């Protein structure tokens, strides 16, 4: 499994170019222009910012089961022909499950909160909370999906956390 995703995302946050070299893949400079972290084989793919954005669609929240973070799995018409509805529904439902896991009240999260309270919340400065850990895994999952399923069709999914968990932004590029 390639580990350039993690390196690239941290390089992006620091605003520097990623010089991570992994066997067979030489990542290009981070492209902050589109806000996506694309690390690709320089020989096979063309630069992402040479492509024009054709359309942006936003998958809205599904509030039918309460305040929990869930996104609608309804297949948008703009993706017709590019992605199969099952693959799309699978991606969204996995994301929904991960968000449910993040917000779930379990014994470990309860203990974490209590311990944090007892230490005067200094514990929160030292460790990542459960929610943050799940968010990191969600970010990684989205990157994986982008690189395996969506980018070959010139579609990219943006992490909904950047928009405040309001919607999932899907960018469709021109195929030319």
């Amino acid at each position: 499994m390639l580990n350039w995703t993690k390196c690239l995302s941290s390089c992006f946050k620091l605003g520097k170019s990623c010089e991570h070299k992994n066997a067979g893949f030489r990542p290009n400079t981070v492209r902050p222009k589109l806000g996506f972290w694309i690390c690709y084989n320089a020989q096979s793919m063309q630069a992402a910012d040479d492509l024009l954005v054709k359309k942006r669609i936003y998958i809205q929240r599904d509030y039918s089961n309460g305040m929990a973070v869930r996104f609608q799995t309804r297949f948008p018409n703009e993706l017709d022909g590019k992605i199969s509805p099952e693959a799309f529904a699978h991606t969204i439902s996995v994301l929904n499950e991960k968000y449910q896991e993040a917000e779930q009240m379990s014994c470990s999260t309860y203990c974490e909160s209590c311990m944090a309270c007892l230490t005067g919340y200094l514990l929160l400065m030292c460790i990542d909370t459960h929610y943050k850990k799940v968010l990191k895994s969600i970010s990684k999952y989205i990157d994986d999906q982008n690189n395996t399923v969506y980018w070959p069709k010139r579609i990219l999914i943006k992490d909904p956390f950047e928009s405040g968990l309001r919607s999932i932004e899907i960018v469709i590029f021109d195929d030319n």
Partner: protein
Amino acid sequence: KSNHFLRNRLFQVFPGRNKFLCDGRIIMARQTGILYFTISLILITVALFFGFECRLTLVTHLPFGFFIPIVCGLLFLFNMGCLLRTAWSDPGIIPRASPEENAYLERCLQDQQGRDENTHEYRPPPRTLDITINGAPIKLKYCFTCKIFRPPRASHCSMCDNCVENFDHHCPWVGNCVGRRNYRYFFLFVTSLTFLCLFIFGFSVTHIEGFWKRSKSVQEDILLHYILICFFSIWSVVGLSGFHSYLVGRSLTTNEDVRTWSKKRNRDNQNPFDQGGLWKNCCYVLCSPLPPSMINRRGFVSDDYVTPDS
């Protein structure tokens, strides 16, 4: 190749009316004078208590008298920690919609609305969305400043010009909004302040009682005035912590509570966010997992950044 030293951080282009300190790590509302007043009030009270109590423990040699300043010190540190966390953390601000998202949403709503109609004139799309949560119908309102449909329980703070999740109220004493992410710190601040006040008040009264019979000196006069101030502030703090305990028990926010008063409904409203039971509500409000801040304060502005207002 862009030099990262020249790029702005996102907090420098933040559209709301907030103040940022420590290179974006600390976020506060614009008016912070009252916060400094609160901090100095608590500091002076505890400092005076230490000044008088240390004398008391040294003079009277109470058995286990050293516990008094230790407990007071711990309470004070916890209280200060909670206050600073409430004042300096992001209350749960929802980032504003980008212009593209806004345009997409308007198109979707217009398509839904104008499906049966043949007119081509521009009609503004409906600004409320009807959804059902756990059987209760709720209207999602559109925020014209942030250009989003506000999630349930969110509200727009006019002081900070931001939409805040689970908006409770804007507290001038704390110098920040109280929302989803800092409500527990606010609650613990108010509760620990109650205990601190009662603790200081109790021991000051016993101190005064001990010295009253012997002699009346200037220092005891000061202590008497100080006790009176403490006494009056206790009522407000105890009242506030009692009110917030009630809110925690019913899983409500101040905003929602105030709205039910103004609507003057006689029958008991079923709160759709009630977890079912006092203990469950307390756990949910105080111990549920906390999401990190959604406004990326310390990230860098990308080359194609467009301000949400344009």
